[in-house]
């Protein structure tokens, strides 16, 4: 084993490592810079939680759309012009109720329906959430500020295949009669992950 302080000293920083890969891709005509610019545009303009918020607001106000959404999520979000990467073949939407809280996770890595609910937040990808949410769901939700009464049952969805999940929150009573646009503004990424109720 080499001395670990020696490794530390000679290890390239993460910036140097990605600089190197970018430069080598560029030198091979793989258009790295273009891909980076495009990605930055995509994450700021396209893969945003406002997409999922529109889906939720539509489902709250249009019962027929909600039926289609629960039956085939991918096709239904397509009606709103929303798309998913080819390898996400299926979007499963799980509806919360006054007696049920659904929550999503990925214990093996960090899978999410990122083009619909936005890229996963840092804590979703952390070891603490991945290890504990499946086993200590009620405790973890409480720590995250969602203290559920015993009358609310919990279902955890571990994203182990490329089927992706999103949660349809319960519409708050005081928002009945609001427009889709107004409703979309109150829907958060946390609510679509299932760690918050609105």
């Amino acid at each position: 084993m080499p001395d670990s302080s020696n490794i530390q000293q000679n290890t390239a920083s993460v910036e140097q490592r990605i600089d190197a890969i970018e430069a080598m891709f560029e030198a091979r005509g793989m258009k790295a810079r273009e891909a980076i610019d495009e990605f930055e545009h995509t994450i700021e303009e396209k893969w945003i939680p406002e997409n999922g918020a529109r889906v939720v607001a539509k489902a709250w106000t249009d019962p027929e759309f909600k039926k289609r959404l629960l039956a085939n999520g991918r096709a239904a979000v397509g009606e709103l012009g929303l798309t998913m990467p080819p390898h996400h073949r299926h979007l499963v939407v799980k509806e919360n109720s006054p007696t049920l809280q659904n929550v999503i996770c990925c214990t093996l890595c960090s899978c999410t329906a990122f083009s619909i609910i936005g890229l996963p937040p840092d804590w979703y990808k952390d070891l603490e959430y991945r290890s504990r949410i499946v086993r200590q769901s009620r405790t973890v939700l409480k720590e995250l500020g969602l203290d559920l009464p015993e009358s609310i049952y919990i279902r955890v969805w571990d994203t182990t295949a490329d089927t992706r999940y999103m949660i349809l929150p319960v519409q708050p009573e005081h928002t009945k009669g609001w427009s889709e646009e107004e409703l979309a503004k109150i829907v958060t990424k946390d609510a679509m992950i299932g760690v918050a109720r609105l």
Partner: protein
Amino acid sequence: MDGVHDMGGRQGFGRVRHSPKAQTFHEPWEKRVNALYSLAVRLGIFNMDEYRHAIERMEPRHYLSASYYERSLTSLATLCVEKGIFTREELERYAQGQVPLSLPIGPGRANVATRQKFKIGDRVRVRNEHVSGHVRAPGYTRGKAGVVVDITPAYPFPDAHAHGIHAEDEPTYDVRFNAEELWPNSADKAHVHVGVFESYLERA
């Protein structure tokens, strides 16, 4: 593989460092990592199963101490070297230092030939199997019984797809487990739903 990445149900971890305004990225280099591994997937250099498995192959101390995007970066660098896009020497020359890579890949496996079809309502058990390569059945489900509550579209079998072995598409079953049966006497009451590939299941 029974790697440290298989986190579900591990004990000893503390509070989730949650914030309602949590970000996805914290440093500009992280976006470049995400952009370039996505580019590599689009160019067909590797697929998402190979990408995930290369993260799992990281030396465990490195995996646990690396940030999320350093893990992505290590997978990208490892696969580009393994696929011959550049050599480790060239990478380290460009990077002006050593670049830690994942450990070498082991054997994968093809779809299980004797796999059975299941229908909604069937009671199933996750086979008591230990594989050295990529696998998408979390360790906490191994040998455990649950009920098929839904069937979702077919995907390439990851144990093969991550290893360059011909991967047939096979259905995944939404299997509902009871948390108290997964971890008797030491879990909060809940249902845990897992998308389980057909090859991982047997009738219970």
